[in-house]
């Protein structure tokens, strides 16, 4: 049997190239919902929202927490350009937890001003990190 086809996947943030590997497939949070990409996918452009990208490489799954950005798919290559991206071992769980609590407090208080959107975004970021880091009690149905 021929080797399963692979696709080059790169994640870039302003800080560094976070990930660059040949992978089997991935599942990522686009603005209109989760999107799965296999090798030889048709060219596609989409915007990303805060969430967790699930990557399968050589049959093993790993997770990357990302925030806003965009993704370009070509048959042999996926470019994911986002503001932040972290692999599970780079995530500071305590920081994400306290960020989540802070955001929860602010969500209680500031129902209708502009800070609400910000608090919501930081809440989502914290959740995505906790989820990627494999934390259980993250109330993850939001993402």
């Amino acid at each position: 049997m021929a080797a399963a086809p692979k696709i080059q996947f790169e994640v870039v943030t302003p800080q560094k190239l976070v990930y660059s590997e040949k992978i089997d497939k991935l599942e990522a949070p686009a603005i209109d919902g989760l999107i799965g990409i296999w090798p030889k996918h048709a060219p596609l452009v989409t915007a990303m929202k805060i969430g967790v990208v699930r990557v399968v490489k050589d049959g093993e799954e790993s997770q990357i927490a990302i925030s806003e950005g965009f993704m370009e798919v070509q048959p042999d290559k996926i470019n994911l350009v986002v503001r932040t991206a972290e692999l599970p071992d780079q995530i500071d769980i305590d920081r994400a937890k306290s960020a989540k609590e802070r955001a929860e407090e602010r969500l209680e208080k500031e129902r209708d001003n502009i800070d609400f959107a910000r608090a919501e975004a930081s809440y989502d970021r914290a959740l995505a990190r906790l989820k990627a880091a494999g934390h259980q009690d993250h109330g993850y149905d939001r993402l």
Partner: protein
Amino acid sequence: MQNMRDIQRRIGSVKNTQKITRAMKMVAAAKLKNAQDRAEDARPFFNKTVEVLRGVFTRTRETSHPLLAEREGGRHLVIVITGDRGLCGAYNHKVIDIAEEILEEEEEVSLMVLGRKARDYFRRRETDIMAEYIQLDDYPGYGFANNLADEIIHHFRAEDVNKVSMIYTHFNSAISQTVKTMQLLPVEKFNKAEEDSIAVEEQAEQMDAETAGEEAKSKKYVDYIFEPSPAEVFDNILPQYLINVIYSALLESKASEFGARMTAMDSATDNANEMIDKLTLKYNRARQAEITKEITEIVGGAEALK
């Protein structure tokens, strides 16, 4: 021959100045290290942003988005990125000169100035300044780029301006920086040369060189799928494109400023050394002359007593 005390005083003042230039050089060097790391780390991000998005705009026929609208004539908004402080060689002025060129060539130009140097300069000349930002952070944040992008998108959508460009300084090394002009809105398509250079890059990446040529050609127009729709995708990624590009330009400019300041202060310190050497020589000559004069006077006096 100058008075000895005058020379000594001058040596003292040059030495004091040298202390300042040396301190500034060291501060700039320390900040440069950090700023340079940030700018260089952000470069793959910047290149990917430009490569992906402009590539998409070039290859797709989908161009109906308001931020891609090319409107004839109208006002040109120029973002000028300089520093808040001087003593950094020609860094600020190189940027201002390019802005001046645009002001001379075109009739309707407004400026968005970043940095006290550009603001003061264009205020004195009563140029139309649409917005100004001073006291910039040494290490600019993503949020600041976000605000700038929001502001120019607002002006472009309201049709206050029909074109937006940005003048910034690209950091090559501590001793070499290049001023660059980049059109932000409407988003420019790749021209032929840039398109080719990317096609070549992509070719090099591919193992199988023979089919790469054909693939590069067929990439000229790719029918991208836009999920969920072109309008929604562009609504999301165009602002991000601007933020990313502005953010990178801010980082590059800051690194350049520190590089320019370090180089300028380094040569100022060297010049001060040279000056101190010259003045010391002068001082020694003056002292020697004084001694010779005194001896001649004493000898002359003794002669007269005989």
